[in-house]
């Protein structure tokens, strides 16, 4: 059964169809790539999937539930987490606290318990610390847990964003250009991490990427967007050899 099913997704901005008749089906556990030239509408698709924009038409269903038109926070609770193209961390919070914000909806104590420092506060905070450190360890960030997020080097900031997204316990993880600004070494590491996340967290991942090495290395299926429309979709190998795709990337 497919985890994410999108049918006929469409949105226009001032007459321009930024995304036009977008369809996708992602199976549970799949590593799926969304590629296309700059301005093709990839990030807009992410914004539609996460409720930042409301679609003009189309249906988005996650795990059999219709999530079309829900608010961003409801969609996150339904099970979609994301990272951003231009990193959006909580800069003035520590690395650990960034992840703990991600854990927010899974660990509870009341405001009063927090202010009065009742036993439950200490108990739950301890559990949160433990869980957050586990996640940080996956991304080799446990050594920097006390650092301010803004003081992390770029590559680690990207990893922290993924850790924070995972902390919300999503079913589907959306990664917006995770390798942007990374050198080939870092990209190689990132590929391992993404695979690790998929295997160990039972995660389904949809990612936007320009780095063809990463895309061909880890994605099982691809959708190519061009001018807001789907150019082609299918298995990675066949899509990347499609002459139309090559033309779209290199121009006429």
């Amino acid at each position, binding site marked *: 059964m497919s985890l994410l099913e999108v049918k006929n997704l469409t949105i226009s901005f001032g007459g321009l169809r930024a995304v036009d008749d977008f369809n996708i089906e992602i199976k549970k556990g799949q590593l799926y790539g969304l590629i296309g030239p700059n301005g093709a509408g990839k990030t807009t698709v992410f914004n539609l999937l*996460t409720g*930042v924009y409301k679609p003009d038409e189309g249906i988005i269903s996650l795990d059999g539930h219709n999530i079309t038109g829900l608010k*961003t*926070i409801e*969609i*996150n*609770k339904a099970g979609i*987490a*994301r990272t*951003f193209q231009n990193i*959006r*961390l*909580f*800069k*003035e*919070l*520590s690395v650990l*606290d960034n992840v*703990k*914000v*991600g854990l*927010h*909806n899974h*660990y*509870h*104590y009341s*405001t009063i318990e*927090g*202010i*009065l*420092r009742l036993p439950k*506060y200490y108990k*739950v*905070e301890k559990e*949160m610390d433990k869980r957050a450190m586990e996640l940080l360890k996956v991304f080799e960030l446990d050594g920097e847990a*006390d*650092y*301010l997020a803004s*003081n992390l*080097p770029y590559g680690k900031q990207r990893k922290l964003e993924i850790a*924070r*997204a995972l*902390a*919300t316990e999503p079913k589907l993880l959306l990664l917006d250009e995770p390798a942007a600004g990374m050198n080939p070494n870092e990209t190689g590491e990132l590929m391992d991490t993404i695979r690790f996340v998929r295997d160990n967290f039972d995660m389904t991942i949809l990612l936007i990427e320009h780095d063809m090495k990463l895309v061909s290395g880890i994605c099982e299926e691809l959708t190519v967007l061009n001018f807001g429309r789907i150019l082609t979709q299918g298995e990675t190998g066949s899509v990347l050899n499609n002459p139309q795709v090559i033309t779209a990337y290199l121009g006429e």
Partner: protein
Amino acid sequence: MKKMKIAKTTKNNLITYSMVLIAYILVQILLITGHISSLMSGLLVPLCIYVMLAVSLNLTVGILGELSLGHAGFMCVGAFSGAFFSKCMDGLMPDGIRFFIALLIGAAAAGIFGILIGIPVLRLKGDYLAIVTLAFGEIIKNLVNVLYIGKDKNGFHFSMKDSISLHLDGEGQVIINGAQGITGTPHDASFTVGILLIFISLIIILNLINSRDGRAIMSIRDNRIAAESTGINITKYKLMAFSISASIAGVAGVLYAHNLSTLTALPKNFGYNMSIMILVFVVLGGIGNIRGSIISAVILTLLPELLRGLSDYRMLIYAIVLIVMMLLNWSPKAVEWKEGLKEKYFSRLHFRKEKEGR
């Protein structure tokens, strides 16, 4: 890459608490030995009020990251609701309990106003939010000035016109008399009560910041869009911070009302000028820095008094100090220059420290 470790928050908070405690003990010693002038001792309760206002506004400005210019309005709500209660209940219950309930009522009333105003207003951002909060503050002040409430054996009477329209019977008593405000509020405020209230405010704010809710509030400040997609309920947490901040301002207002025999809503005490003055404390003390707010509120309240000898020039000097401090603290050039100095003179010291640290 500069790597900076965050100082341990618990230790930091302890410093803040002990600072207040030491200040309290010092003042008490000076009071007993008679080293504080009557002018200064008259300033002690206002100091506590300003400190509470500053730390509570810092919750909105520094922790939630929203600019509010209506903080004095919440203080006004607290002051009038608390004084109203005390005026009605004076003599009907023990003073201590009455004052305690008055404080709770002031906190609740201001908190409710915070929520009522926050719901429509917190959608706005930045300077728009600033002007709307300023507008609300002025409206509250204005409304209080045309509010008449009286009491007789038939119960409460209410008017927005004048005290005659209350139609009180012979023994009736006007409690809130429009622009004349409330007269004869019992004098329950003291420095000790003020310090206690500061402690309670600090416990609420500092513990809130270092909790699950506090993290959610700060995540909104740092990146609203990311917070939303991480599952943080923006409206809920904005309202929470805003109304807690308003509540504490309300308590400060109750303290204010019980420190004066006559309570009136003037531009001086509840107008936007007051809100701006509190904002000055917050910014000068460091946005988001609670201890800084306490220190700057104290210094900036005492400064004009310390300069009293200079009579006419004191507010002028205050203004110049304010401008110079802002330029020195915030101008990128000055910041760079200070960093340079630090590196030049403290590099050796710094080096040693790092070595010891390992």
